[in-house]
């Protein structure tokens, strides 16, 4: 059987767990060779930021997870290779929420592009290290709406900006053939008047000893050159060595990052880097560093290094502002939390969205059935941080004994909101509106409880107390307030660009920093807005942008989850996108890719059979 067939066969064996069988919120899976190196750092940053219970699993092999896989709600794979193989062997994964870090594409070793794409379609979300890889995955057939770019980071408390002038030229990283070590050797040899520093890991800091520079066959030649200092040490000591680097050089052939580029920028070391990973997104050639072609020659690199050494004035540290590991972890953790949109309607169907919310008191969901076995059954209802639930409606199916009644209470974070009762079998609907804002948790981690009030039960030997969950709907405060509807009553095209404004901040997904003027600036590489929508044949969105802090063009994407419209590279301040949403679409996602860009104004115009209506989602510029 092919790998794809095995994945399909494995999926067929999957069965969901009940919450009382789950040990961890998230399990991070990586190869043991990642211990002590960047992929582990990535996972730890997410784990720390999440606040969840977690466990790390180190597999000795890529083709099979060699250790026990603890039961968890979510699994985060540090590499798509081990993820693809694991999907073919672990049925439990198919019943959990899956997340993948996409380091960089390397389809020549073990996993083909077709296999990787097939596997990644099983992931709820894929995080890429740079926007180019996100676009690549989209082009290969991965749903672009599931792909999110999050730049790696560095610790700004450790990597401090310094003045340049007497520092060395630094190469930083572990040994890989893709780092083009022969080119590094050539550069050092060709510039005998320039002092170089090679900074790499020591044996104690990495599990995979293949990452040590001693594995480079020509290391004796490099070591023999008088103008290079070679430092192999633990990552904790990297900041002190970055403080001695004026120019950071990467001549790598393939990168996801490289992360040392962020460390270099933070340390105010001018980068000279090949066009790999996020280099093109952080470095603007000739402005805050130099970009070299992949496979650059020694002569070309040497010339760029000399120019860079001559520039001791340009401040490059600002390009790394906000790129901390903490921000990185928070961003991914927020995406994994999966906050519900301001208006949500979830059903008991396998893809209806309810199943991942089930907590104590529910049986493992089977096809089309979510049964409570305990008198208190809980649902985790993740809202955006700071959002407050304003109304909620739950539909249950109940079957009291003939002549008996069943009464169920609805509680939000422990406070009773509503109760209902029913005589005889049928549907019981519980509804609560005007829910006080103070009842919602600021971190968005809310619990909805359904409590059986009558008949009471749960004592040993008592019969199980059951009801069935059919439907959950609600609205949260981040939705457009009813007093300023997104799509007002029929308007003429002339009125279209001048509707009541809604703060864009109210619609934002993760990835934004609110500016003093009220606009939104990208915190990292990308961010998105959710644009609420009623039925429409077509939608036109006009976006006003501010490239003030950007060093490269941005891209805009508009999607309804099925189809996507992309802008192409944007350098100007205004861009328009159009899309014909699928019938029944309730919201569009507008995504902005491009570090440093800010959003000033978004205008939404929908075309319906009877004419056009419009709304504006306004930032700080009236």
């Amino acid at each position: 059987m092919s790998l794809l067939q095995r994945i399909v066969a494995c999926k067929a064996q999957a069965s969901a767990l009940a919450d009382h069988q789950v040990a961890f919120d998230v399990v991070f899976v990586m190869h043991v060779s990642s211990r002590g190196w960047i992929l582990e750092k990535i996972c730890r940053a997410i784990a720390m930021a999440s606040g969840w219970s977690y466990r790390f699993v180190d597999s000795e092999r890529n083709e099979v997870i060699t250790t026990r896989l603890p039961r968890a709600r979510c699994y985060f794979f540090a590499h798509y290779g081990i993820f693809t193989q694991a999907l073919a062997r672990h049925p439990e994964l198919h019943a959990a929420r899956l997340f993948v870090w996409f380091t960089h594409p390397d389809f020549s070793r073990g996993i083909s592009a077709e296999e990787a794409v097939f596997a990644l379609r099983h992931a709820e979300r894929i995080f890429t290290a740079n926007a180019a890889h996100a676009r690549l995955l989209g082009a290969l057939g991965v749903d672009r709406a599931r792909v999110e770019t999050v730049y790696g980071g560095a610790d700004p408390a450790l990597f401090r900006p310094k003045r340049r002038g007497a520092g060395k030229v630094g190469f930083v990283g572990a040994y890989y053939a893709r780092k083009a070590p022969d080119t590094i050797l050539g550069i050092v040899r060709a510039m005998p008047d320039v002092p170089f520093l090679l900074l790499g890991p020591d044996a104690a800091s990495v599990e995979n000893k293949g990452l040590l520079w001693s594995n480079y066959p020509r290391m004796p030649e490099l070591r023999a050159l008088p103008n290079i200092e070679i430092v192999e040490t633990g990552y904790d000591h990297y900041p002190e060595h970055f403080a001695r680097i004026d120019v950071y050089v990467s001549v790598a052939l393939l990168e996801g990052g490289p992360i040392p580029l962020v460390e270099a920028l933070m340390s105010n070391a001018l980068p000279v880097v090949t066009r790999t990973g996020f280099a093109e997104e952080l470095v603007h050639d000739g402005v805050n560093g130099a970009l070299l072609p992949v496979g650059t020659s020694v002569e070309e690199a040497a010339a760029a290094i000399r120019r860079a050494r001559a520039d001791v004035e340009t401040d490059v540290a600002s390009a790394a502002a906000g790129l901390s590991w903490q921000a990185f972890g928070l961003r991914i953790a927020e995406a994994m939390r999966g906050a519900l949109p301001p208006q949500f309607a979830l059903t008991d169907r396998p893809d209806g969205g309810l199943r991942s919310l089930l907590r104590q008191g529910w049986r493992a969901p089977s096809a089309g059935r979510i049964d409570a076995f305990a008198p208190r059954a809980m649902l985790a209802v993740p809202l955006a941080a700071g959002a407050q639930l304003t109304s909620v409606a739950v539909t249950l199916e109940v079957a009291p004994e003939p002549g008996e009644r069943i009464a169920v209470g609805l509680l939000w974070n422990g406070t009773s909101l509503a109760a209902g009762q029913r005589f005889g079998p049928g549907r019981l609907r519980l509804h609560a509106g005007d829910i006080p804002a103070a009842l919602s948790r600021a971190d968005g981690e809310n619990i909805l409880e359904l409590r059986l009030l009558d008949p009471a039960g749960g004592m040993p030997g008592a019969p199980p107390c059951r009801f069935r969950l059919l439907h959950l709907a609600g609205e949260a405060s981040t939705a457009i307030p009813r007093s300023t509807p997104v799509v007002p009553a029929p308007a003429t095209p002339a009125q279209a660009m001048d509707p009541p404004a809604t703060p864009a901040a109210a619609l934002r997904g993760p990835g934004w920093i609110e500016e003093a003027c009220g606009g939104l600036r990208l915190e990292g590489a990308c961010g998105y807005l959710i644009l609420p929508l009623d039925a429409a044949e077509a939608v036109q969105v006009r976006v006003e942008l501010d490239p003030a802090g950007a060093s490269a063009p941005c891209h805009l994407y508009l999607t309804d989850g099925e189809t996507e419209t992309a802008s192409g590279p944007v350098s100007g301040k205004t861009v328009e996108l159009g899309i014909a949403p699928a019938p029944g679409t309730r919201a569009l996602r507008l995504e902005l890719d491009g570090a440093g860009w800010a959003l000033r104004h978004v205008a939404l115009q929908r075309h319906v059979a009877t004419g056009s209506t419009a709304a504006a989602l306004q930032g700080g510029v009236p």
Partner: protein
Amino acid sequence: MIAVQAAATQAPLPFALSAGRYVVTARAGDRILQPARARLIWAANTASATAALGIPTLLVGGPSAFPYGVENPAGKAAARRELERLYGVEGGFDIALLQDPKAPRGQDWIAGGQFIRQVLPEAGLVHTRDPAIALECARRKIDWIYEEHDEDYQVGFASQVGPFLQQPSCRAIVAITEPVARRLRAEGVPANRLLILDSGVSRAALHRREEAAERWRAAFLRPCYRHLAAYAGGLHDERGIEHILRAAALLPHVMFVLAGGSITDQARWSHAIEERGIGNLKLIGYQDHDAACTLQQAADVVLATRAPGPRAAITSPLKLYEYLLSGTPFVTAEISATAHVRSAGLAGLAYDPAAPDALAAAIATAFGRFPRRPGGYAQNIEAGLAFTWEERQRRLLSFVGPVLVRETF
């Protein structure tokens, strides 16, 4: 009693192995590791503790636990990492991975195969729980220690090995409890070779895991639970799991988390809690040593339950010792094996396993009397130190004395 044992740790070790290695293996045919297999935990920890005492040690088992080749150094390194992960043992000992073609189905090796050819030639002393291995050593005049844990395959040990019990190569017969020792004496084991030793506890349990423990508390206690009660161990009926279910039904504001048990037992109890509508109990399955220790530190109270009956008399309170190192207040069944801990003035309570709802009452009392302390209760941790595997080996090897070079064949 605990104070006396703790003081004994300071004594020099009157043991020496003049040649060969200290070989540890539980039972012929066993893999070298397997989740929730008590005798393999015993073997790995015994090997680790022996190595920690400076004695060259070899742990023997089969390789079928690993889904990858372990013939090369990288494979062996991977196997060591897995031992560390699963059982929380530190390295320092070598491993021999045996695979006999003639081994019966489900077993990796046999006592009369590669073990004789590859392991015994370099053995100075063999420490085992398998009568068949003890017999192979005795026949070849290789010094040996046998441990009796009252397992099925150990039945008839004295009659199998009887003629060799008086020979010098028989260095010690370890009984896991006093009742087991009484039985062995009755079967003819000489009293001067007999030593009673409880199971041990890994020193790794001492390591504080406050941050991970707080995360688990946050995950398990939200939104409406006030306390966390944890149990770690098997889920057989004899373990008193029924008591925990009753307590959970009576204490709806307490979240009960049970770690361990076979898949079959987990499914059985999972069905039971659903049938009874008990929503405040989790069965999170077997956890690696580190995670199990984290759970114990996260809890307000840890539970050492036991069903009443004959098995309770021969049990070894291994988990209770691990609980002590967690520093978390415990509630334990009143059985003979826990009497010495219960009388030591520790943060913990006992309940009568014959009284159906006594556990719930004891748990509720423990919450009031021993509120959760960051860092744990020092007196419990101090008491637990007397029961580490290192202390256990120290006592055993002090009993054994020097092992001199002997002509073997």
